């Protein structure tokens, strides 16, 4: 079926199978492999992308259900994302980096929605993104640092 999507600012009209997930479309159809799939069941947060500014799990979202939507991925870039990426680097907020794109997209959604989140808000929001290397300390510190700079 035909869907019209805006992906990282670019306009796409695509013919997608009804059962194709947004993650598969991004990774295989559009060569945007930054979005990672780790569980495929919506439990780990690795595939988090923004659909109309809301964080969604791309592995459980049907591409066909995103008709007319504005999709943003780790490849998209923004001034706030740049700052988050720099803060993640500075706080060593990753080891293997496999969960990192999902962590960053969750953090981006949080800070766009709530520029000055409390510590509890950061913990609640970011707890949906699993990191098996255990880089949580750096992740929380990086998000808090960017939030502080938000002024």
């Amino acid at each position, binding site marked *: 079926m035909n869907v019209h999507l805006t992906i990282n600012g670019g306009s796409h009209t695509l013919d997608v*199978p009804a*059962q194709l997930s947004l993650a*598969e479309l991004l*990774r*295989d159809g559009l*060569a*945007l*492999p*930054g*979005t*990672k*799939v*780790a*569980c*495929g*069941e919506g*439990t*780990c947060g*690795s595939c988090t992308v923004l659909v109309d500014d809301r964080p969604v799990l791309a592995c459980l979202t049907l591409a066909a259900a995103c008709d007319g939507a504005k999709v943003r*991925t*780790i*490849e998209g870039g923004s001034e706030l994302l740049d700052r988050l*990426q720099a803060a*993640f*680097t*500075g706080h*060593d907020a*990753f*080891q*293997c*980096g*496999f*969960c*990192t*794109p999902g962590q*960053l997209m969750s953090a981006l959604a949080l800070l766009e929605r709530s520029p000055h989140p409390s510590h509890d808000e950061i*913990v*609640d929001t*970011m*707890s*949906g*993104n*699993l*990191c*098996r*290397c*255990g*880089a*949580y*300390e*750096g*992740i*929380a510190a990086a998000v808090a640092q960017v939030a502080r700079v938000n002024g």
Partner: protein
Amino acid sequence: MARLVRTEAVVEGRVEQRYTVVEDDITPEYDLDRPPGVVGRPATRVTARSRVTGAATFTTDVRLPGMLEARVLRSPHANARVAALDLDAARAVEGVRCVLGPADASTLGETPALSDHPEFAGAAVAAVAADSGAAAEAALAALAPVFEELGFVTDLDSALARQEFIEEPSESERGDVAAALAAAEVVIESEFDAPAQMHNALESHCAVADWRADGLTVWTSTQSIYQAREQLATMFELDPERVRVICQFMGGGFGAKFGLGAEGVLATELSRRSRRPVRLVFSRRDENRAAGYRTPARISFSIGADAAGRLQAIEASAVMGLGTGGWAYPILEPAKALYACPNVHAMVLPVKQNLGPAAAFRAPGVMEGTWALEQALDEVAERVGLDPLELRRRNHADTDPGTGRPYTSKRLLESYDRAAELAGWDSRESLRGQGRVRRGMGCASQYWWGGGGPPAYAEVRIGAAARPVVTVGLQDLGTGVQTACAIVAAERLGVAVDEISVRAGDTALAGHGPFSGGSMTLASIAPAVRSAGHHVRTQLLDLAAEMFEISATDLTLEEGEIRSVDGALRHPITEVTSKLGNAWVTGSGSRAPNPEGMAVNTFGCQIATVAVDTATGVVRVERVVAVHDVGRIVNPMGARSQVVGGILQGLGFALMEERVIDPTTGTMVNAGLEDYKIPTLADLPEIVCEFVGQADPHLGLGIKGLGEPPVIPTAAAIGNAIAHAVGVRLRAAPYTPRRMLEALA
């Protein structure tokens, strides 16, 4: 001059004899009296840009023209025979390019990659490759397998009764344990049940194989690209020089990804037959059913001590559930080697079960063995009325208890002292409280290897722009070893760490490098990198000496400049390198053996503070103090991350992680991450981390490994803290609210 030397290496407790080629090393040792320069200063990761932008290409991201998608048919039964399998029907599905049945892969690998007698739920029976994932899944359905179910054994007791073993049971004894136990003033009997902890690296096992007329290339998420290459060459009868294994970025492994797994075997055979690139990625549930776990075990001790708390005898036994594979990880090594106990008898029974094969998991054996031993030690302390840390000090081993060998360095006593100071150990009795929430503090010691060793080779080159390139034949699990290599090279070349590129994860690039395991990677490669860097340095200084008409011995490289020792001459390095044009100055280095006749070990102490809600049974770890002795710290930032990550995996083992097998079907009921819980940000305790070790004077660059040490004592410290808080010791982990409430009832 290259020499062939024979050397001994301890790999996760197994002693290996190796021959290795070593080049003469003219690199001067670090000046121990000098304050740390670039080595020892925090540095962000050299791979950071790739990892935060999504640009890093993991195996699961590799896409090749014409690439096929593979899927694996797995048995849903704990033990079965395949009575029927319609391979032809699968081949007839549109878009299907290749179908492999059990007979097609029976000769591949030590254990067949596919079997018509799948001995566990999740065992692979058939594999298909097709133009799309959907076509491959349709082919799996078309296989219409018929299984004849057989009896199965999954629990440890039944497995022990059946007396089938993955390895022969083993025993070792020093002294006379029976006599010493009979004479001991205090004897405690203690038993612990360790759960099966699942690795759950977020990148599952995966491979992309591209079989071509002129050679084979395999991208795979592996902790050992060279081992994978050797296995491929042997299995498929190929010239190793025509086999290339690539693992540039890797989404974790934690021990489950050594060499070539079934994913690599199957993808390669499918590619060989279809003459197309083939990608095989395990699903999360397949990962947890078939790709390894930390061995569950029942660990029992009889420990005898004198009235002063000095250990007289340890009788230790462990029944380890290895499923259908793995090996007997050194689970009783802490009982044998952590304390100066004269009489120790240890017996290990590695039983076979109808479960997937076990795999090494970060400090395999030693972590769960420490978890049990260190709690038993607290029981001894309680019986003799001694402070738990004091008991450990009194039983400190000044030399390796098994061999009598001296340690290259050991700062365990300092670790105890510093951890106690940081944790406020002396006031721990005032923590407990009287209300619903009780607090407690517990400690545990850490023992591991981690000295590294040969073979490990590195190349360093520098060109006109003075941006050095370090090439190493290893793979980066995510530990930060590439950043550490850049730091070590930067020290010799006098440039900033971020001026250096590190190339790794590709057998076509470099000479042999170490596998990522045993906390050996950095300790193995760093001396080779420094030696290679030194060769480049001496050549650059020779060139500069000619240019500036000064003796090379009067020159040094610092902060991007060539300087004379007296400070009179200062030129940017590029003033020399720019003369190179398109040429490179190159240097190579190799890792020399460790000294013979000495024990190389890492040590440490962690102290956990917990809060136990006696009404809900919820245990919260509030604070962990970690003090480890791992020699020279190359990158304090990366080192802290390793410690925090290790503690979180130990916390997961202690509080929430456990494979659950349905006893009626023998299948795993929590193979997804919804039901198998791993720690999240909300579980993160306050972590205080320090290192007491200075450079080890007997090891190359004084570096010992850090990958495994931090995971080893955490769960034991938590168990001891709970016992301190509520006066009850839980015998089985994880310490779930249900188990906690049952224990309190």
